[in-house]
């Protein structure tokens, strides 16, 4: 099987952090393949590096060593030159044009921000919604940020309809004008899932999505994820709870910075 058959492929990931004088090695050569349509749970004890791995898979962080391929494209090449390119766009006054029309110098391997915006959707343990925005605004925010000013004016109605559709799917049709702090934990997490799904990403990454919820509410969230997976959504979920991990199609155990054990829950 070539790397192009996987939606996501991680090869030899190493990651370490410096904490004062000591270097903490979190990932020590992680290899992981995720097929399209899979629901993978990464399980491990606290501090085992599972969240770090998820962040690297979603391009929120970069490994010290190793590569992540998304549909065969190397994420490190998307990172390469991103800051210089942005600065160049800004200096050449592409910044203004970029804002209006999304023009400017582009990376031939694809843009890392575009990857975060369109290819992956993140669901965090603490929801991470913007309190100043309404539920509806939180959900259509990814669509808004991916568009130029002109583009947004052209498609804002469509984007709002899509956001309403996603929120209806999450059972929150009546809550679109509420602010996140007016919602319960479960509702907030469903808003966060809605936001992650707004741009119809190919990969959904969930970091302890039920970690901050009671078991009944957490179960509701897992049901949502299962339903999404049944509809074809690829999901990688991080959890420390084996019972939750068993709801996924496949479980990967991370111990001491390495994948120790793999099994398919459905086999």
């Amino acid at each position, binding site marked *: 099987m070539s790397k192009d058959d996987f939606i996501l492929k991680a090869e030899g990931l190493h990651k370490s*952090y410096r904490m004062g004088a000591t270097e*903490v090695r*979190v990932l020590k050569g992680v290899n992981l393949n995720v097929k399209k349509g899979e629901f993978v749970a990464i399980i491990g004890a606290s*501090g085992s*590096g599972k*969240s*770090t791995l998820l*962040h690297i898979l*979603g391009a*929120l*962080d970069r490994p010290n060593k190793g590569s992540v391929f998304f549909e065969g494209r190397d994420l490190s090449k998307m990172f390469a030159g991103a*800051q210089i390119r*942005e*600065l160049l*766009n*800004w200096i050449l006054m592409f*910044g203004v044009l*970029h*804002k209006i029309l999304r023009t400017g110098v582009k990376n031939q391997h694809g843009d890392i*921000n*575009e*990857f*975060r*915006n*369109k290819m992956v959707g*993140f669901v*965090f343990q603490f929801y*991470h*919604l*913007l309190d*100043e925005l309404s539920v509806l605004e939180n959900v259509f*925010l*990814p669509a808004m*940020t*991916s568009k130029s000013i002109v583009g947004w004016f052209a498609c804002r109605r469509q984007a709002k309809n899509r956001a309403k559709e996603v929120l209806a799917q999450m059972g929150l049709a009546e809550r679109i004008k509420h602010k996140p702090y007016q919602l319960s934990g479960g509702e907030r997490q469903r808003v966060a899932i809605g*936001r992650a799904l707004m741009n119809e990403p190919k990969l959904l990454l969930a970091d302890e999505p039920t970690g901050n919820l009671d078991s009944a509410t957490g179960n509701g969230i897992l049901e949502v994820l299962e339903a999404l997976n049944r509809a074809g959504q690829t999901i990688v979920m991080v959890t420390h709870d084996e019972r939750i991990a068993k709801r996924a199609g496949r479980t990967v155990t991370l111990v001491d910075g390495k994948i120790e054990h793999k099994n398919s829950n459905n086999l």
Partner: protein
Amino acid sequence: MKRRITYFAVLAVALCVFIVVVVMTVMAGLVNEFKEKNHRFAGDCVVGTESLVGFAYYEDFVKLLEQQDFVEAVSPTIKSFALKRRRGSDQDNIAEIMGIDPVRHSQATGFGDTLYYHKDDVSGTFEIASDANLAGCVLGDFMLLQDTNSRYLSVANLPRIPYSISCFPLTARGALAQAGTDMVNTKTFYFSDQSTTGLPRVDGSIIYLPFEEAQLLCGMAGSTKRASRLHIRFKPDVKIQDGCEKVQSLWQKFRQDKADEIQAYSLDTVTVQSWKQYRRASIAPMENEQTEMSVMFGFVGITTVFIVLVVFYMIISHKSKDIGILKSIGVSNIDIIELFSGYAFMVGILGSGFGLLAGWIFLLKINTIEDWLFEHFGFQLWDRTIYAIGDIPNQVEFKILAIIVVSAIVACLIGALIPSLQAARKKPVETLQVGQL
């Protein structure tokens, strides 16, 4: 924009803009008014010498100037120092005498407008109504005369107030004329008018005399007559700089033509100056004061930058999680910078808008406010005897306003730049997963 700290930022910018608008407008008004008074006093261009001896052949040069199409009027003057004593007083005062032809001088400068009694008919400035044979003088210091009913006297009713003016006449070489016989020339003049230029140093020391009388007193009325200065007014469409350059080249040629004359040496010290150069000793301190003010308010601008910087640091420190969220959904570094820069721009626009409006209203009412303060507390913002002004200048200059507003917005953008760059450089994981590995 709804956060309370934003209101503080807007308020801070508004206050800075308000202070700068008010002080810079008043200061610029004072300086402009002061310059204008100096311009009116000197004319457009002055050809002359600092030497008390004066320079010869001035009449020829006046004729030459009057033939030029860019020259409106020329007024030769005598300038020297004298002892002034009011009859009946035992005190001599040092005075600066200026011999003028009132008509010509009013054409070349704003002299006529400074007179109290002869503003409309300057030809009679030195005439004494009660006796045509007496010579008049115009004093710069304040002495409007009142009758017993506290009414100001008209020119026809002016009493004879004699002043003895004593000068030391000098030869063309600078020696005392009439040495060994009668070294001092003294003549009595009678108060005929008062001139108020609004320039305290001028008004406090100068005494205007008829040109010929002053020339005689100073020893400049010999066979080759001399004058101290020529005050020139250019035609309205002539730029002062261009006019002065033309006069300068005329003077060079004139000097060459007169090189073989007996008193050609007296032309060596003559200079051609624009009114600004001629009055630079008076204007420079005020311009320096304005520069110092600008520097001080430059510090106010720097303070604004720091206020905005601190405010944005606080906002960003409170918003670091939001920045991480935005980056996790694909917002780029440049978008983050643009976001905070846009926010700073709005703070700048609103702050400077409010400051400008408040400053404008305050300036419109500044004289009313000052009158009220003076009436109730005896407090005066600007001492009239020092600044020689009627009202506090409150003419808003749009150029200054534009500079202040643009500066305030730029200050906000600069203040927001470093925090914005820091926010943009934050890694999403640093803000979203603090303490978690």
